[in-house]
């Protein structure tokens, strides 16, 4: 926390968690998709569902998917902006279970070129967020750091490959998490870094045997 978290942020109202946080979930999802979204099916859970319309949570999520920032005047008009930009969207109620944060949304996204992504994001207070699920696999990152997400087969050596690449590129790891669907199944590693990862490093990972998908979330 710094002084600009106390006196700030500058944001479109009415709620840091239901509006600003929702914009951020949209922003991070857009970057994770890596392309202009063309289709978005959005499930609202808990308090997002109960008070979302009154807080503009729906318009905030769409604004975020369009790349608007939390202080953009156009957030209330994001639905018409989405129509202009060819983003088709719909909302539905969703129950993500007891363990899900009350301010959660599930976004099923498709880009124009057909790239697909499923994200579950939670707004955890004061406009801060946490991405809780990516393509059905558990995750936990804030979008405050450059983040590398690697989906791979659960076999020895992949962590070493990724960390040696980062070491080679002079990138320091801030946090690292590992999850898997089951022994020998699919695994995901999520690394929050202190520096941006060069594009060729990310590309190199994509070509490794056993690596299924590489997603890079850049702050740039």
């Amino acid at each position, binding site marked *: 926390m710094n002084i600009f978290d*106390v*006196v700030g942020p*500058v944001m479109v*109202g*009415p709620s*840091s968690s239901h509006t600003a946080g929702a914009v951020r979930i949209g922003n991070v999802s857009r970057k994770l998709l890596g392309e202009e979204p063309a289709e978005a099916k959005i499930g609202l859970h808990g308090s997002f569902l109960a008070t979302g319309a009154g807080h503009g949570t729906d318009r905030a999520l769409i604004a975020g998917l369009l790349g608007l920032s939390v202080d953009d*005047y156009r957030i209330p008009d994001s639905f018409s902006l989405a129509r202009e930009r060819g983003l088709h969207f719909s909302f539905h109620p969703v129950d993500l279970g007891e363990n899900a944060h009350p301010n959660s949304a599930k976004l099923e996204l498709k880009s124009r070129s057909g790239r697909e992504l499923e994200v579950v994001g939670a707004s955890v*207070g*004061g406009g801060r967020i946490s991405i809780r699920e990516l393509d059905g696999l558990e995750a936990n990152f804030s979008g405050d750091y450059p983040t590398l997400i690697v989906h791979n087969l659960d076999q020895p050596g992949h962590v070493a490959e990724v960390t040696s690449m980062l070491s080679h590129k002079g990138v320091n790891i801030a946090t690292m998490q590992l999850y898997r669907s089951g022994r020998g199944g699919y695994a995901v590693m999520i690394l929050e870094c202190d520096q941006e990862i060069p594009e060729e490093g990310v590309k190199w990972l994509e070509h490794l045997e056993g690596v299924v998908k590489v997603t890079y979330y850049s702050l740039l």
Partner: protein
Amino acid sequence: MYKTLREIEEDCRKENLPFWKLVQRDDCHEEAMSEEDSFEKMRGIYRAMRESDERYDKNLVSHSGLVGTDAEKVRLRREAGKLLCDDFTGHVMERALRVAESNACMKRIVAAPTAGSCGVMPAVLLTMQDRFQFDEDRMVEALYVAGGIGGVIAQRASLAGAEGGCQAEIGSASGMAAGAAVYLLGGSADAITHACAIALASILGLVCDPVAGLVEVPCVKRNVIGAMNAVTSCDMAMSGIRSRIPPDEVIDAMKSVGRALPEELRETGRGGLAGTPTGVEIQKKMHGRQEKS
């Protein structure tokens, strides 16, 4: 970030520097930011506050229909010379409503410390600048004073209604504004911290009971009491009145009171005004609308 107001005050004495400078220096050190960049960023925050007031739209009503257009009613009565309040406090009241209503209507505001309490600081600070013609740098310095106070409250207690009730939002905003107002009037570091303590102590225990869970009723009107409370707390501290309980202990009391509040009264939209028959009815109507949309 400083963890006690006492430490800031002691450093002011030891280093013979103003309150705002110590807060700024401490934050810049932690964030590895230059003091110049930090100051310009804070200037942007102050300008955004000014803009949030200027861009008020008197015809706008919130999505739920529960709030909007009230600040204009105060303006008309103020201009007719009919308010009980004098011109200064009349403006404070009107501004608190203007900015808080703007927030509910999805306009741009500065969350200071939160979106729900965004009307308090601009109501006090902008109106003081208009009256005394302080230059912009001085207003930016006042924001550091407010930020330093808010930082201590955030660490010792909370700035979130869901954790500490409305006292954590409107109360904190009020304490921050009171301290900033004392700074603008040239008060000592001691007076700054005691203005904050008086403000917090005066609305200790305020519950967070938003109707239908929205940042509208009673949040918008509570911005007025937060701003007015800051003005009177500033005047008391500038008159030489001191809080009998040390400021840091008042903040600790706010934390324990927040903990003792039942969940119904911590932003769940169940207790207090939200739990009244009318509050419940509004909530049902809003929920029905959500399912249809």
